């Protein structure tokens, strides 16, 4: 009898200890993980996707050429397209693929736009970018596969499973925000769009230097094939797109490869580089000298894109869905508020 009591006591003690340690570790992890919404916002959007109702008829996947250049509000207000941008800094083509896989677990949109700027990268670029893309994803086989495909040599899978191991030394840089946002981050984007309002005219944009080999790497093609196949399987209209930007240089040789690829696979490829139809003015419509668009440029480009989608793939107009209308009304208000706030900040500088 006494024996059992001691045993029970020990088990209880052990359980309580284990719980206390796990709790401590959990709290520390929440505290030490970087808070993207107040820091590098480019890492916040991937996670925000899961908070938006999965009723999008267009999902855009890609890097900053997507999430800084396209305004979903314009697509909604003028064309009735309910769109979400799953964007992250320097997103690689295999990350785009796994994000597509991930998205299809929640919804099946009419069309998917993939930014193919990343076709030029055949290997992981930088750990910090991997973090921004992968950390926001919910756990699934897609995330696991994305991690293994993306890791640089110095990285470890366990650092993704337990981010505490990665950020253990951040206690030195903690701010008030880290405590405030421990359990819930602030919303930073509008359906994945990150608004920029500054203006920096494009000047002296350099030409690309000649390369030895313009062929995209096998890995890039492999994942492009996978994207194409997945879209066919789910009966999703796939559009490969190159955003209108002046730099980094988009080589004709690259363009030609994608034209060939699109023709062979009967998918659409929309190259917006130097497309006069759009009506962009790189003296006023860019905030960083021709790399990305500011909000004025994004709205112009989004109008072009909306028209194109209507004409080319006859994307449906969802403005008769009451719930969506309501949701977008409040988003529109946020958008305008943010816009005026940002312009005010800009004029104050």
């Amino acid at each position, binding site marked *: 009898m006494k024996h059992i009591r001691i045993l029970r006591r020990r088990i209880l003690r052990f359980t309580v*200890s284990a719980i*206390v*340690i796990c709790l401590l570790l959990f709290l520390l992890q929440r505290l030490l993980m970087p808070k993207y919404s107040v820091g590098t916002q480019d890492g916040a959007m991937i996670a925000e996707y899961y908070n938006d109702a999965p009723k999008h008829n267009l999902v855009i996947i890609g890097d900053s050429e997507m999430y800084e250049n396209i305004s979903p509000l314009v697509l909604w207000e003028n064309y009735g397209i309910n769109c979400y941008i799953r964007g992250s800094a320097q997103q690689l083509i295999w990350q785009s693929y796994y994000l597509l896989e991930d998205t299809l677990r929640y919804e099946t949109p009419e069309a998917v736009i993939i930014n193919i700027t990343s076709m030029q990268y055949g290997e992981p670029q930088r*750990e910090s970018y991997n973090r921004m893309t992968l950390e926001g994803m919910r756990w699934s086989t897609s995330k696991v596969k994305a991690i293994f495909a993306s890791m640089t040599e110095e990285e470890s899978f366990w*650092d993704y499973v337990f981010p*505490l*191991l990665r950020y*253990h030394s951040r*206690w030195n840089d903690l701010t008030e925000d880290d405590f405030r946002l421990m359990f819930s981050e602030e919303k930073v984007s509008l359906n994945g769009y990150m608004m920029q309002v500054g203006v920096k005219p494009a000047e002296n944009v350099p030409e690309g230097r000649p390369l030895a080999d313009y062929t995209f790497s096998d890995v890039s093609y492999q994942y492009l094939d996978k994207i194409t196949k997945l879209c066919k399987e789910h009966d999703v209209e796939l559009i490969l797109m190159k955003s209108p930007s002046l730099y980094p240089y988009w080589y004709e040789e690259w363009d030609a490869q994608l034209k060939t690829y699109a023709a062979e696979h009967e998918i659409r490829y929309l190259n917006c580089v130097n497309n006069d139809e759009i009506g962009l003015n790189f003296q006023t419509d860019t905030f960083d000298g021709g790399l990305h668009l500011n909000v004025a440029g994004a709205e112009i480009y989004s109008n072009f894109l909306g028209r194109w989608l209507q004409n080319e793939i006859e994307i449906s107009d969802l403005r008769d869905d009451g719930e969506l209308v309501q949701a977008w009304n409040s988003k529109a208000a946020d958008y305008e508020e943010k816009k005026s706030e940002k312009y005010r900040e800009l004029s104050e500088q």
Partner: protein
Amino acid sequence: MQFVSYSFLLFLAVVFIIYYLVPGRFQWMVLLVASYVFYLFSGPKYLIYIMVTTFTTWLAARQIDKLKKQQADYLEENKKTLSREDKKSYKSAIKKKQRFMMLAALLFNLGILAVVKYTNFAISNINAVINLAGGQPIEFVSLILPLGISFYTFRALSYLIDVYRNTISAEKNVFKFALFVSFFPQLIQGPISRYSQLESGLFTSHHLNLKRVSFGLQRILWGYMKKMVIADRIVVGLTTMTADTAAYRGAYVLVEVFFYAIQLYADFSGGLDMAIGAGQIFGVTLPENFERPFFSKSIKEYWNRWHMTMGSWFTDYIFYPISVCKPMLNLSKWSRTHLGPVLGRRLTVYLSSFAVWLATGIWHGASWNFVFWGLSNYVVIMISQELEPLYRRFHQKFNVDGSLLYKVFQIVRTFLLMGFLRIYDCFDGVITTWRMVGSLLTTGNWNILWDGSLMQIGLSMTDYIILAAGILLMFIVSMSQRSGSVREKIHAKPYTVRFVIWTALFLAVLLTGAYGIGYDASNFIYNQF
């Protein structure tokens, strides 16, 4: 596989579970397989070396043992008929055969070690001579240096010699012997255990003993703390300084002495803590390798407390055999009659010690730096040996013996002396080292110690605070250790107190450890020996 890696922790967990699930008589096999898997992770190419060393020493020891048995049988059978002389000559014939077996295996394995470790050192020296003569230099050869080769070779050889000396009997099962040579906690950086120390631990069955296992884990955690919090942090500053000998001279050299002493101790003894802790988890008691070496009052004492398993190896297998071999004894006799009792008594000791320190130097690395370092130790020890009577007289006259202040003085003196000797490791050559130590006197930049220059070497204020806290903790633990096991003392405390102590240490390592991206997961210093 590094001890500081996720894969090692995972590996340890898996081996642990299997080890305590299988029946006792299979446990050693689990360890053998685990050890080879562990070594395989370090590089498949290495395996052949350790297998060859294992097999050759095992075989030679078996032969020696058989001869031993043959002799015993023969003497027993012919007990009545043999004269004393007959017995003697029979014995010496057997001994001769045994010696041949022993020497063959010994030279063979030392030969492998010498070739893989010292070929390029030899070539570079030959080239230096060739250069003088204006000839064509020899190209360096590209050899692989199997991980931990010095450690496992020494372990295997101690077994061989012990069998030859008849202090242990040979292991019949080659696989069991293979486990002794390759037991993974001690595979890459020691301790250099003896067969007699490990035999019972390795080959008997062990039940899961919670106290022992948690003590083992605690020891590992303590090792991680030394290695990750202290050594891997301080090494950043050390590397910055030693990489640029032009910019960091003078007073910086003194800082380097301190940094390197701390880093070396924390790194090496931390690694040994992990090894011994891992052994303990499996019920295998590995010999201790350190006994608070920085509390030593003389260099000689220091060497009895630092890297103890290596020291005792050199004493048992080099110092004694050389000292008591026939020619040495003859020399000793001759010198005592011809050179007088003072020098006479010392000559043999000096010669054998010279051999030991030369070997110690070379063992540490294939470069002149290490040779000089080893011999510097030799010189210092011999000088202090000679000064001993002087000291004694001084002590008696001023009655300082036993006073705390004097003890502290001795400890600081030993620490500084050892620190300066060790600094050979940090620079690219013997001359550079001397120049750097010399700059301490000529540069006169003492203001760098307080004007904030030390914040520019890759360590921030936070780093210094953590280092200070870590070193203080190490010091407190060492002090407490003098009166018995610290883990036992903590174990005697109530559960909540224990829980708080160990959780705090765990979190401290987790949060302040220098690991992961941004820190170079640096190797243990002693890996490549």
